[in-house]
């Protein structure tokens, strides 16, 4: 009866991309896969599948987690036609509390390659959506995923985990945003064609920079790149006049000597009427003389400067991650209370039924005597016994809930309580299902641990 959440999978820390890509599923395949998984892994009562570029995980609920994990693992191997030995070493398996903890951490972007990156929450929501669509998400998964979303939201709100730039190109783009108010009227000039430079130019373009000039030592390269990025090619020999209109210059040339020097750049600045210019030097050796930074309204960042901006953001995110872990731990504790409460549900139902039966039997035994009484007296006796039973039940159930929720093995606690209170009358353990009595009880437990509906 003791159902547990479980997670089995691989991620960027345990498996290289060569392994991850063999197991990964496309978005379109997931619903069908969940259907197959349901057939082939009968030990899993509920399932969901998370597949992103950094992780492939099966999230499930099972009464026998060990068996369910084995079934899920062999399903993965068979379904993806991969030798299980290929990923066996990379596989992690979480059960119960650990599984919930892992799910919450994933959602809060604490398990991401770039801690704090915001995409994972959307991916998790998609995974949940597929499970709901496939009909493989039940009571526990619904609750677990929704909790994971609210934890993620709380972490975003209460910590600065998503702050700062964690890649060189995004740091450059963010700095451009600190210098310029809008990029739409700005001109970007790309000198040379390094991968990082191209990425930066692309991002600036995507953020609204309309005019893009591309220059390169070989004009053909410039033309090809300009076509790819939607810009205009400029011959390298005649790039100088264009500096007058360029607001962001990205340097990525392989040059032994800097192509921009402070002496002749002064003239450019005067012609620009001192409009600010952002020089992003991604070249090694550097393309722009570092003394340019001292000129008025010139902001020069070389690759190391950008790197240190990134490092600072990364370490700040790490600090914020500690705060996030506390939030996750709180949510975990409250979720586990709910999970444990779930184990008590059948026992509570049995106890309630058996005590109600006790009352009915006793009343039945005295039927003849009761019938002889005045109607008002009879009603009184019925009311009295009902109150007595209800008060007794309330006391027992409240005690059971509080001890059960904190006990390490709530199912065992529940069983003892049932044996004590139901005796021979106990009907054989009903399956955990969606009866009205059960749902009532769940709502009950809900109310004390939920801040966000």
């Amino acid at each position, binding site marked *: 009866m003791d159902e547990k959440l479980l997670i089995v999978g691989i991620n960027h820390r345990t498996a290289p991309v060569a392994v991850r890509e063999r197991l990964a599923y496309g978005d379109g395949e997931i619903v069908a896969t969940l259907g197959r998984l349901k057939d082939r892994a009968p030990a899993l009562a509920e399932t969901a599948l998370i597949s992103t570029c950094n992780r492939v995980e099966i999230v499930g609920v099972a009464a026998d987690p060990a068996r369910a994990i084995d079934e899920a693992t062999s399903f993965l191997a068979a379904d993806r036609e991969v030798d299980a030995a290929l990923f066996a070493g990379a596989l992690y398996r979480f059960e119960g509390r650990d599984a919930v903890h892992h799910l919450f951490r994933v959602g809060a972007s604490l398990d991401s390659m770039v801690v704090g990156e915001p995409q994972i929450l959307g991916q998790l929501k998609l995974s949940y959506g597929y499970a709901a669509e496939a009909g493989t998400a039940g009571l526990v998964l619904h609750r677990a995923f929704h909790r994971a979303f609210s934890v993620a939201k709380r972490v975003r709100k209460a910590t*600065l985990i998503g702050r700062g730039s964690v890649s060189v190109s995004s740091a450059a783009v963010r700095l451009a945003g600190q210098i310029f108010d809008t990029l739409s009227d700005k001109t970007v000039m790309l000198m040379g064609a390094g991968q990082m430079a191209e990425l930066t130019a692309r991002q600036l373009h995507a953020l609204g920079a309309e005019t893009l000039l591309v220059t390169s030592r070989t004009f053909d390269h410039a033309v090809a790149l300009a076509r790819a990025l939607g810009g205009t090619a400029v011959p390298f020999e005649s790039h100088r006049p264009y500096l007058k209109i360029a607001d962001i210059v990205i340097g990525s040339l392989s040059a032994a000597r800097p192509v921009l020097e402070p002496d002749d750049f002064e003239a450019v600045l005067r012609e620009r*009427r001192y409009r600010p210019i952002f020089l992003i030097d991604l070249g090694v050796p550097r393309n722009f003389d570092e003394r340019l930074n001292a000129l008025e309204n010139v902001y020069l960042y070389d690759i190391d400067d950008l790197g240190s901006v990134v490092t600072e953001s990364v370490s700040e995110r790490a600090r914020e991650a500690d705060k996030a872990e506390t939030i996750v731990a709180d949510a975990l504790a409250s979720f586990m209370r709910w999970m444990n409460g779930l184990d008590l549900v059948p026992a509570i139902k049995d106890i309630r039924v058996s005590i109600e039966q006790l009352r009915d039997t006793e009343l039945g035994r005295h039927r003849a005597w009761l019938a002889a009484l005045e109607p008002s007296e009879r009603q009184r006796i019925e009311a009295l016994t009902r109150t007595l039973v209800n008060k007794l039940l309330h006391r027992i159930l409240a005690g059971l809930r509080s001890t059960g929720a904190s006990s390490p093995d709530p199912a065992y606690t529940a069983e003892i309580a049932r044996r004590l209170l139901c005796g021979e009358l106990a009907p054989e353990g009903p399956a955990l299902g969606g009866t009205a009595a059960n749902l009532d009880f769940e709502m009950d437990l809900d109310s004390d641990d939920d801040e966000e509906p």
Partner: protein
Amino acid sequence: MDTIWLPPALVCYALSAVGFVAGRTANRPRWTDQAVPLLGAAVLFHTLDLVFGALRAGNIPVTNFAQSLSFLAWLTAIVSFVLISRMRMQVLGSFVAPGVLAAVSAAMLLTRRGRLVIPDSLRSAWLPVHVTLAFLGDALFVVAAGVSLAYLVYESRLKAKRPMTPVGQTMPSLEKLDRINYRLLGWGFVMLSLAIVSGALWAEATWGHFWSWEPQESWSLITWLLYAALLESRIAAGWRGRRAAALTLAVFTVLLGSFLSVSLLFPGKHGGSFG
């Protein structure tokens, strides 16, 4: 001379100043968010204080240094509040709110030093017009100085390769700070010019001469020339950014000096001793 509305205004100013400064230094965007309505509430209370003060005095209440300070702080708070709520210039709060708080506190302490009655000769429709224009100009220059200070701080951080990490979305770009500085200077200059013209016309109507070279008049002319030069340097020579911000601050110190010295050291007609 102050009314019962000044203490609540002061409390709101203090809370909003704390919110702005602490929000920025402790990276708590929510504190900054809460400081904005507090500033609005402070302005509201302050407005009530001035309205009741004006009703009691029978005209615009700027007859002594304390009242002038309070009036200037009020206009500065309004200009800042508009910029903060309309142009998302939350950063201004941490520069301006403490200054406004200090000015209002000083006004409250000084205001006990008796009251001055406006002589009948000056009770005219020119008074509120002239005074409001002059103080609005000053307030715009105060805020321009705050914006320039923010510019210089951000700019030096950027140059030093230690850029600020924005908290929330409230960090304006250098370009925006520069543009707002320019606009504030422009409007401030317009107000100052109109104040001088209205003052001259009023003087003509009252005393029969436009200009009498009393301290405030001379200083106004000097600051007017300095601000004119500042605007000219931007329009003609394209001085902008850091240089413009530094000059704005420099000219502002002259303005501040003239405001204090005229009020405290050489009180002519403007300083409260109406000759």
